[in-house]
């Protein structure tokens, strides 16, 4: 059931009988040259489509912007930043709380949103509520370690193939080429350099680390539509099961 599709009379009935809601948040940001800017929103949207027939939990509209300040040098990337995202999520969750929600589920497509979600979750927890975050790409690793991936790599490319194969531009897939800080301080990921075998965080804008915008152990060319479909189906089933159990968790 989608909140945007029901009227307030039906909503009143739902919130009288239920104290749980499913929110979603994505991002519009660079995911390598081969993937669309909306990758972190499109995959959750597809997941919601798969979750909907498996649950009676009300589904709220997805927020398609997130916190991705380190990527704004790439054309088309827009970031709310962590503090504004926190404020937006606070208003939305407090709005639902006023309608009687105590169990918040958030489907999230973007790692950069987690610190803001954590802050909101902590506030809600102190107000007698609980928030569960479904960071789908992390949960997928627990469901099947072979699905483990990075940003714009095979895992997310497979996810987009499951949304629509036409959204992947295979002609633009490049190898990952990370730019080091110097000979001694090699780039080791989004946030770290390696010096004498030890990883140390040195934050740089993503465009200073990679020209094409994807980073991960999972090359995009390993992605297949069947991987994506199986992965999203598994995540959707898991999320529906979790929400059913989450309804039975005692609250303060």
């Amino acid at each position: 059931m989608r909140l945007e599709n029901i009227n307030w009379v039906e909503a009143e009935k739902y919130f009288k009988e239920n104290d749980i809601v499913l929110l979603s948040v994505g991002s519009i940001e660079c995911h390598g040259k081969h993937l669309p800017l909306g990758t972190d929103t499109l995959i959750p949207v597809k997941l919601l489509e798969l979750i909907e027939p498996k649950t009676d939990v009300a589904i709220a509209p997805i927020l398609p912007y997130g916190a991705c300040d380190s990527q704004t040098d790439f054309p088309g990337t827009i970031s709310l930043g962590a503090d504004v995202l926190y404020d937006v999520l606070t208003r939305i969750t407090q709005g639902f709380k006023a309608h009687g929600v105590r169990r918040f589920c958030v489907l999230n497509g973007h790692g950069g949103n987690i610190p803001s979600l954590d802050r909101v979750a902590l506030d809600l927890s102190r107000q007698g509520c609980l928030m569960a975050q479904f960071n789908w790409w992390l949960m997928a690793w627990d469901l099947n370690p072979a699905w483990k991936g990075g940003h714009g790599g095979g895992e997310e490319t497979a996810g987009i193939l499951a949304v629509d194969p036409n959204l992947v531009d295979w002609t633009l897939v490049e190898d990952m080429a990370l730019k080091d800080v110097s000979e001694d301080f090699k780039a080791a990921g989004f946030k770290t350099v390696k010096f004498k075998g030890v990883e140390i965080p040195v934050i740089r804008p993503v465009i200073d680390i990679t020209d094409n915008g994807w980073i991960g152990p999972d090359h995009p060319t390993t992605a297949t539509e069947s991987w994506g479909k199986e992965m999203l189906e598994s995540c959707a089933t898991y999320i529906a099961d979790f929400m059913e159990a989450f309804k039975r968790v005692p609250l303060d």
Partner: protein
Amino acid sequence: MTGAAVREAIKNGAVPLIPLGSLEVHGRHLPLGTDTLIPMKILELLEEKMPGALILPAIPYGACDSQVEFPGTVSLGVKVLEKVLLALTGALYDLGARKMAALNGHGGNSDALDRIGLSLARRGAQLVQLNWWRFVWDINPSWTGGHGGGQETAGVMAVHEALVNRAAYAPSNPQGIAPFMPAAGWDEVLFHGVKVRVPRPDRRVTENGWLGPDAPEAASKAWGDEMLRAAADYAADFLNTYSKTEGPT
């Protein structure tokens, strides 16, 4: 030091080092200042190796909003910590510093350090995060630990053994949110083999206040001495090499 001497040191390549800690619960057996005391000890050892190190006064407060239910814990929160660091790094920037480092004792400070690191990077500067407890895992994986566990207990023993109250050692006994959703760390629960993030105040996760794979009982002063020495040596080596690299552009 005088302001002129700081400017001169920066001009000569010194990388200003900002010690950053926290005042927060670390179990019944460890002091609230654990995350500040250990970096201070590392600095003492580092200075022996690196007499020219440019060390700033420590910031003994950090971001630990999830722990304030424990008596004595005080949190600046991420936004305010960011402002404090912005002012501090801004002053160093104005003195000519383009390479800076933080010696950090607390994981909750990382978000604010990440934000400052990014804003400095956009101004042609760089901030290195020397998260001591984290980088020593790469030096010796057997030192891997959690919050207030054996690793940090060993660290505090190296600072001053009397600061550890061995009589108060107790299991952390983490609590989940339901029998079918046990705790899997501070912020996660385990359901059907998958970890799902359900952040709660830390006091609801453990009444004792420490959490990790490394029981405090495993700590020894010898472990702490060796670990902090290794951390100081590595940090000195890093800073010496880093000070000679071409700065960010």
